């Protein structure tokens, strides 16, 4: 199945992705200022309040707005292009979009008015203005509509094509929608039953153990929600861009299923140092966490094999000759290579974080922030760029003169990310705290950190340059001379053995939902129930504007 016309998705995808990237560009500016604030160089406008306002805005924009709009927009695109049929109920898609816009605007106004400095995690007893949370709830409700539409589109396709396998790109997108529905249950419960009532002043105290547990339910799985577009690109777009085929369609399906199953009952690895959970449940979730490595290893293997096919088709010889033979000048291929490179470092860091003993050393240090910038800001976001470059021609029917600036932009992002995050990791090992605005550089121990923070700052500046160049590159599409759509290359890769019939298990999610339920009950049942069985002490809520 090659390229198919985009109908409703054209405007939907453009609208979603432009919102995503606008938020991203603003947040990138804030990010650089934050690094400057943490460095020994005197930063303008720096107060504790402005710092936490900025980190809240940066974290929310990057982690919630960029990602959610990206996933939704890309999902609409995949639903039409991979299934080859118009999106059902486009009106609802627009409803979801506008809910997201209103919610994001509400949240942004609240943050910049100084009424939300609680950062992007929901950890009471600190609370922000209720509008901060209500805005985010609206974004989530908008994304639930998206989930419904993705499921609907897949079921529609199955009804119309009995026995035909759902194309991998769509199967994976629906996996992400199902994952997201499960993921948001934890944070939704926390917001609706604990935080929003507390923020309004209806509750005077809050059980922070329960809220941290509910947030952990969401906190790991949400990372995979952000990540899956990158993996969809690895499986369905990169092999095609490289001129090869996907080594195995079944591996792809298994990978996305494993992500669905093992990204959920594992969130307690964010609570290793917390007292409210017991060691046995921490162990259980840690052992499931180890299994999350499986789909990533499957992917590294499958995609390397797919690229090897491409390299050999292009005349590459020997053990490594196929690597040199790959068309690195194509942004999708280049980005995939860089993403894999960063995945090695980020994945290694992740293994350290998930190990109970080593976690104690890095917990709440800059190591953690550096880690997720590398894997999320690096591996994931660089694939967002590559996806945008790949689909923008079909969205605008235009092609800029050459992808040279696109390659430059990817290189800048890759180099900037390495320069920023490697010293940042090191600083974490030295004990530098995360979420701290300024450091006492006159202290002889802390003084030694200064030069490394400045190196990170330089990396941040390179990243900002790349972010702005990215926006510029996308704008180029809109002003470039028009080309005919038929000139455009198909986007999705064929498998070496295209699937003709697949078992229902690999073509839908009923079985996997049951298994997720079993695992979630085992992993989170008692850890949540205990708060209702045991009389737990509660913390007094801190409200914004609470004192004058």
């Amino acid at each position, binding site marked *: 199945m090659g390229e198919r016309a985009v109908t409703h998705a054209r405007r939907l995808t453009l609208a979603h992705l432009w919102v995503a990237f606008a938020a991203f560009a603003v947040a990138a500016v804030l990010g650089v200022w934050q690094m400057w604030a943490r460095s020994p160089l005197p930063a303008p406008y720096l107060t504790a309040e402005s710092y936490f306002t900025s980190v809240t805005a940066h974290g929310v924009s990057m982690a919630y707005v960029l990602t959610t709009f990206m996933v939704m927009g890309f999902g609409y695109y995949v639903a039409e292009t991979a299934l080859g049929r118009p999106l059902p109920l486009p009106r609802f898609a627009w409803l979801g979009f506008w809910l997201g816009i209103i919610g994001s605007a509400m949240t942004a106004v609240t943050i910049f008015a100084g009424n939300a400095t609680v950062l992007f995690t929901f950890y009471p007893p600190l609370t922000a203005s209720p509008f901060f949370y209500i805005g985010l709830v609206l974004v989530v409700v908008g994304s639930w509509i998206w989930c419904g539409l993705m499921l609907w589109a897949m079921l529609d396709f199955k009804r119309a094509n009995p026995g035909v396998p759902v194309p991998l790109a769509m199967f994976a997108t629906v996996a992400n929608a199902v994952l997201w529905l499960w993921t948001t249950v934890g944070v939704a419960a926390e917001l609706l039953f604990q935080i929003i009532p507390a923020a309004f002043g209806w509750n005077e105290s809050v059980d922070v153990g329960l809220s941290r547990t509910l947030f952990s339910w969401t906190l790991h799985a949400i990372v995979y929600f952000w990540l899956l577009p990158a993996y969809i690109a690895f499986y369905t777009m990169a092999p095609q861009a490289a001129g090869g085929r996907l080594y195995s369609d079944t591996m792809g399906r298994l990978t996305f299923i494993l992500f669905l199953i093992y990204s959920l009952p594992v969130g307690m690895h964010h609570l290793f140092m917390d007292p409210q959970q*017991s060691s046995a449940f921490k*162990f259980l979730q840690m052992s499931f966490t180890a299994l999350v490595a499986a789909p990533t290893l499957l992917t590294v293997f499958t995609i390397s094999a797919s690229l090897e096919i491409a390299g050999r088709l292009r005349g590459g010889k020997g053990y490594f000759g196929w690597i040199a033979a790959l068309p690195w000048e194509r942004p999708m291929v280049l980005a995939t290579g860089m993403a894999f490179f960063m995945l090695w470092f980020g994945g290694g860091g992740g293994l350290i974080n998930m190990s109970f003993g080593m976690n104690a050393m890095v917990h709440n240090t800059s190591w953690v922030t550096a880690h997720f910038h590398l894997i999320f800001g690096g591996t994931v976001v660089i694939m967002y760029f590559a996806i945008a470059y790949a689909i923008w021609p079909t969205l605008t029917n235009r092609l800029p003169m050459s992808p040279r600036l696109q390659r430059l932009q990817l290189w800048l992002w890759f180099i900037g990310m390495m320069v920023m995050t490697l010293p940042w990791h090191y600083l974490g090992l030295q004990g530098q705290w995360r979420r701290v605005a300024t450091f006492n550089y006159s202290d002889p121990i802390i003084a030694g950190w200064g030069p490394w923070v400045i190196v990170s700052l330089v990396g941040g500046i390179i990243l900002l340059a790349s972010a702005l160049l990215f926006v510029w590159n996308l704008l180029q599409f809109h002003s470039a001379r028009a080309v005919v759509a038929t000139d455009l290359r198909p986007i999705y890769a064929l498998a070496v053995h295209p699937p003709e019939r697949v078992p229902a298990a690999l073509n839908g999610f009923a079985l996997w939902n049951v298994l997720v339920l*079993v695992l979630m009950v085992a992993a989170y049942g008692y850890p949540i129930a*205990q708060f209702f069985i045991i009389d737990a002490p509660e913390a007094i809520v801190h409200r914004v504007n609470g004192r004058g």
Partner: protein
Amino acid sequence: MKPAELREIDRPWRIWASVIIVSILAFSVVFGFLVLPIVQGRAAGLDAFTAICRAVGILPGSPAVKQPTSEAKAQPTTQVAWSTDLMRTFGRRTQAGAEIAQGCVACHGEHGIAADPQNPNLAGQSAAAIYKQLHDYKSGSRVHDVMTGIAQGLEDRQIVEVATHFASSARRDLDPTTAEVVDEDVIRLVERGDPSRGLPACNSCHGFNAGGPIETPTLSHQNREYLARQLQAFKTDARRNDIYTRMRSVAVKLTDREIERLATFYATTLSY
């Protein structure tokens, strides 16, 4: 393909996926809930049952160590423990409160605004701050010739009533014409602190939107002399009722000159 055929190729997937996933679950449960705690508990001298209950979280404590015991006696800086029940008692202004407040007029002024700048204004101070200070005088955590005796004469309920009373009184008016010329150095201390001395911004606790501890007092509209004396008292360890030495650790880093200027700043500046 016929539905029957489809079902045929699906069956092994359904069965094997369930078997594998449930076996992994079972393995982790056996290992984490039984084997590990029993082994760890044996090393720590705990019986198997206790160790398992601790691992699961039914009993408190770790399965790997005996509960530590200690002879140490805590010497709390204050006897005040915040609870929602206590917080809930604030907020209703009562006649009784107004009557008790009559006993304070001599020093704290007619409406909680002291005539003598050595004495603190109470009007508009937060109820939690007033409550904590009176309670501390009463319990001996904070000591003062006059206030200790006065506080000892008040019952807990009366402390709540008088605290609520003053909290809801209007603050001292500031005369805009006497407002100090903006003191940039002090504003920097208030808003940013001084990282080079490890000095946090006063605003990070005392600020309007700050998430500081509940008992953090309001400083604006307070009297200059009183503020300066308190900062000196914290600095010299003469006042030591601040939990975790929050204020002492700040004040000890301030120079005498900074204390004077901060006191002037809070006593005269309108917007803090």
